[in-house]
């Protein structure tokens, strides 16, 4: 299998490319945001876009890739960008970038991966400063990715309220998968493994790795559990004891359980359970169906964690 043949995000890439091709150099550019969970192919998409820009629009556009984890302020963006352009010197990095653009008759395209880090770390005023600069005619174009739609994009008083054109990466479908897997792949086993994982290209890679070394369904699941073990263990270990207890109880129940079920399983009373369940819901560890229904069922939100905790029950 060649993962490079996965065409899942090609439509998006083509539309971004088409936009860049047509964007007027002198106007404020349309900011783009690509939203998709971990492993959905955001980084891959940006890389591919970067190569396409360089190869086909290189005369007028210059891609600059920035990792969001490195950004702690708005100035970091300009400083980092300036250093990529090999501009050395002044503290007015943004002005330097504008001069560079003028000198090279070339507009910078900032490809910022994982921009949620920047938005979560910095204050609203930093975002306004970024927006103000991006809105200047001819300023660099920004195309960013984020794992979620953040309040920074939806709060009325946030700088980027309604400020990005947001595109969502769609989940991987079986038809995408069929197009890339080698002939003779056992689709039944593949599908079963994939059903435990988020519908992303990264999951497909993991599954293909497992299928290439395993011979039967039982081994598949055992191997998958092995693969995800470090991640799950880290998630589990960072929980306090009572939360671990509730997780273990929930893992015993096929379709999750009500507060009463959990009470029976753990032997704890409501006072020992409710506050923790609320905490777990806030942290996204458990999901609860429709709030309005009294006695709604709780389930472990992360299918991997559930699989891992159910060890020995399969």
């Amino acid at each position: 299998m060649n993962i490079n043949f996965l065409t899942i995000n090609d439509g998006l890439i083509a539309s971004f490319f088409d936009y860049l091709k047509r964007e007027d150099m002198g106007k404020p550019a349309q900011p783009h945001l690509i939203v998709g969970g971990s492993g959905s192919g955001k980084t891959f998409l940006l890389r591919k876009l970067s190569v396409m820009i360089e190869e086909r629009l290189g005369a007028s556009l210059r891609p600059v890739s920035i990792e969001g984890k490195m950004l702690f302020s708005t100035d970091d963006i300009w400083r980092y960008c300036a250093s990529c352009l090999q501009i050395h010197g002044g503290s007015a990095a943004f002005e330097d970038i504008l001069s560079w653009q003028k000198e090279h008759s070339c507009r910078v395209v900032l490809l910022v991966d994982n921009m949620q880090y920047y938005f979560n770390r910095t204050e609203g005023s930093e975002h306004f400063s970024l927006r103000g600069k991006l809105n200047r005619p001819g300023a660099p174009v920004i195309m960013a990715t984020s794992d979620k739609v953040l309040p920074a994009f939806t709060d009325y008083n946030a700088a980027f309220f309604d400020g990005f054109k947001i595109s969502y990466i769609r989940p991987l479908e079986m038809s995408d998968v069929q197009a890339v897997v080698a002939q003779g792949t056992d689709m039944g086993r593949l599908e079963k493994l994939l059903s435990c994982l988020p519908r992303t290209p990264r999951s497909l890679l993991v599954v293909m790795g497992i299928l290439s070394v395993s011979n039967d369904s039982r081994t598949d699941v055992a191997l998958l559990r092995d693969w995800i073990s470090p991640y799950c263990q880290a998630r589990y270990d960072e929980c306090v004891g009572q939360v671990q207890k509730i997780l273990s109880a929930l893992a015993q129940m096929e379709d999750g359980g009500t507060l009463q079920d959990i009470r029976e399983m753990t032997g704890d009373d409501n006072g020992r359970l409710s506050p923790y369940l609320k905490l777990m819901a806030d942290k996204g560890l458990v999901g609860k169906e429709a709030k309005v229904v009294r006695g709604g069922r709780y389930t472990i939100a992360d299918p991997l964690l559930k699989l891992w905790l159910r060890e020995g029950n399969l």
Partner: protein
Amino acid sequence: MCISNKIGPPVEGDDFFGREKEIRLANRLLDNGHSLLLSAPRRIGKSSLAKKLIEEKRRKGWKCVYIDLEETITEDGFLRLVIDAFRKNGIWEQVSKRLTSVLDKIDKVSVGPVEFGIGKSGEQEDLYQGLKRLFRHDEDSFIVVDELTLFLGLLNKSEDGAKKVAYILNWLRSLRQVGGTKIRWLFCGSVGLRNFTSSRNLGYTVNDLTEFNLDELDRREAYGLLLELGKSEGITMDDDIIEYALDKLSWNIPYFIQIIFSKLVENYDGTLTRGSVDLAYRDLCSESYLGTWSERLAEYQEYESPARQILKSLSTQPAGMERGALLDKLMTGRESEGFERVDLLLSKVLDMLENDGYIMKNGALRTFRSPLLRDYWFDRFVL
């Protein structure tokens, strides 16, 4: 080049469409020496219009400056933006000897952070007065200050903020009060400058400004915008489809027209029907992030429940409701002695909802700011 589909950033050049009436009115006021105040909800098209007016005035030979105060939150930053903008645009006299020392100091700004030494009030006074003397008042000039209330609001929270805010507002006023000045100003903001100033006893600093209103596009322009956008993508939009889409949006500010158009393009498969418009609209109303508007109400705490009551009522009334009708809703089923308390509560909640962009005031009527949010709310909490 022709128009291109933009959602979010201010539009310029060929991307700007319509607003003919507003432009004509603004030009007439400016030509007659008025300075203007434009307060309107976000994304209505204030900055785009301001830039368009600059384009027009520049063509007439006026000196023009656009200052975007969202880029700063400090007084230093304010001065830096102001100085930078004016130096580049020839609104200032040839720099006189007297001030070269000030500007020298400022020149270093680009090399490293600089303290203007303001705070020691004597020096501050000198600096502002010095800058003031640089303005040429004998040439037709147009200065746009965007996001003024945002900046003042943040500055107000800093140390000695109230004093700084008062100083800047008075300084700006004094610039407008120079006898025979030919400089005209336009201040833009999404938060009302009048409320902001009057609640701080600074109303007098802006009472010379002429209110300028901005609302939806008139039907003809809204129609034209959608038609032009269609052309730019090679999509034929017939009469019926355009009318249908505009009816659907009901509040035809350019932003909503742009956003529904972008959805139409995204789903486009060669034909456009009323069904495609329905689909695009439904897509927009069901975007999962609209849910955050409901979640965010949890922060209202004791005001959450009345806020929900108000929003629920408003979602059933696209044309809007008067305050009295909303009061009736909140009073329903309560003892009449509670009236005064509920009346106060209503004012408070309406303010909160307006500040947070849920609703807006349109004459005597309150409506949802976004038709998309209104229909989302209706689908979710009424149906």
